[in-house]
């Protein structure tokens, strides 16, 4: 097994299969990892510019003992629903859409109750990755803080809280 494959499997929940249906037929399979990675960049493009490891942080989110099972399930369902909306509209999964198509889809989804909450949650966790203490692995050399001229508080944590 090569390193990237091993790393991918370490993501556990993020690398689990999400079965996608086109109405009632199985259309395909995706993973939260693939969809969330693209979605984070669409929603919070600054993260990629600052080289923030947002998807790595999502791994912490999924294994965090203080984030409820319901919240984690909602994220996973959001991935499924976003993709199913994508399949119904464009006959493709979210990550296979063009940037223009993804933007249009997000505009539609944001007007639904689940979609609004899902997109908000993804953005909120992405900002946590960018602006949390660098010890969590997202806020690369305090790049997120520097972007907003923000001084993190002292002392910094010596270990992550998961």
């Amino acid at each position, binding site marked *: 097994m090569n390193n990237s494959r091993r790393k991918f499997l370490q993501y556990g929940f993020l690398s689990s299969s999400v079965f996608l249906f086109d109405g009632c037929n199985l259309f395909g399979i995706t993973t939260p990892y693939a969809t969330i990675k693209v979605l984070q960049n669409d929603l919070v493009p600054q993260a990629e510019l600052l080289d923030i490891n947002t998807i790595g942080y999502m791994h912490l989110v999924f294994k965090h003992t203080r984030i*409820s099972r319901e919240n984690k399930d909602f994220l996973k369902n959001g991935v499924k629903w976003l993709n199913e909306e994508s399949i119904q509209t464009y006959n493709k999964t979210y990550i296979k859409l063009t940037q223009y198509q993804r933007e249009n889809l997000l505009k539609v989804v944001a007007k639904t109750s689940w979609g609004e909450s899902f997109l908000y949650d993804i*953005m909120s966790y992405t900002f946590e990755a960018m602006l*949390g203490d660098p010890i969590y692995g997202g806020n690369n050399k305090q790049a997120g803080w520097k972007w*907003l001229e923000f001084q993190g*508080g002292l002392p910094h*944590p010596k270990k992550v809280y998961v």
Partner: protein
Amino acid sequence: MYDICIVGSGAGGAPVAYELSRAGYKVVVLEKGEYYTEEDFNKDELAVCRRDMFTPPLWEQKHIINEYEEGEYKRYDGAEYNWNFWNGSLVGGSSNLMSGYFHRMKPQDFRLLSTYGEIKGANVVDWPIVYDDLEPYYDKVEKVIGVSGRVVDHKFQESRSSKDFPYPELKTNGATKWFDKACEELGFRSIPTPRAILSQNSLDREGCYYSNFCGSYGCASGAKGSARAALLQKCNAQVITDAFVYRLESDGTKVTKLYYKTKHNIPHIVKAKIFVLAAQAIETSRLLLNSKDEYFPNGLANTNKQVGKNLIFSAGGVGSGRFVFEKLSKSQQKELMEVGVFFNRSLQDWYEYKEEKQHFKGGTIDFLFEHQNIIPRVNEEIYNDKGELTWGKELMKRIEKRVTTSRVLTFEVFNDWLPTDKCFVSVDKKEKDKYGVPVGVINLYGHKQDLQVGEFLAKKAVKVLDKMGAVEIDYSISSSPPPNLVAGGCRFGDDPNTSVLDKNCKTHELENLYVTDASFMPTGGSVPYTWTIYANSFRVADIIKEELKNETDISS
């Protein structure tokens, strides 16, 4: 057998532990949470504020909330609605996490009924003690816990036995001058807010290092006057952590045994001569109500069915205004963005006021910068000013501009949450926590006068923000309860039929059971409670000391 067993290690319990252990008595303090010290505290926003590391997960321990609306209660499951009433399960309790805005109650707060008369629909009473009884203990708190500030004359300045605070005021942001000037022009009296924070090294603790992250966070220098840093770390009271007290047992006249469990559900029994409850207002009532025995079928000390009644919070609300670079000079921009130092300004000009010939008890307005936590400041930009969800480059631009070229000044209004029959604590018949113990039910109702007074005060605060040149000025006064400003449930009083505790905070029905958290308060005053809780607990500590001394004198 201990001399004293105290349930809860926060501002209500720790003064008793400190005083009695220093007087040579054998004291044990039971705390549900863990023991963190200055070494452990840091400014990890994700852990402390996003993942609530100092409070229990709601799916393990929750409350049921019944909110009174249009003639009936609507039931909310705290876990389902993420409605959290925990304030800090750790040694020292929520005093570790407070901002430490310290105001004394004023003489009229002890005499609400006699001063302002009856209010329809509210159970307003006078306290069985007066301001002068508590004044020496307010003074003691200034010196032992450590309060910094500067006394200024104003029309509602309460009498003081010490001329000034023992510690000079903390450093303030340059924008504070704008506030003082605006107040002067408006004819308002700007008051430096006293803080339970040491402005210099003292009391074997380090002074404030202006970390910029105070409220909600534990203090890494010990400057904040938490019950742990100021008291428990300085006495030899035994502190047992991971101890959830779920029941007391009596012989009809005395508490004989206390039962607690660890997180692994291992039960323990504690015996003591005197028991003191200080688990914070809601949990203290819950413990008494859950402690039923053959002598007290309604719950301990509850023959008159007063336990849990007259629960109060601090009424009022919050507001804010934004200062934007476009309206400021370069030097003002620099002053505004200076971080670490405090704003620390209050107004008490309307602690009482007249409106339409009616005399009202008013309150306090504290001004402070928006909390420095960066994630909520960014998240609040996700919605644009039309209330639409936004993302992508548009959102990135807005965040950058708002965070780097503007700053929000907020205010908090504190006025009386009038005690009523509809606001009380009970226990649920079905829902249990992870220990298998019935959860507390918070029955909520806010009296309409609370809102009227809150509105009056908020409009005064808005005038100041407007005068200062703020934009986007807004406020919200509501009956939604601030979970960290809770009191009542075991009110003290001279009449055993209408109160749970006597004026010494001992239960009328059990001769060795005291309550020293904010539960004792029949009305709350128009200030944050912590200073009064500390002061009263020091007062009760003296009473218990005297009682134990008399007992020793008699037996010898």
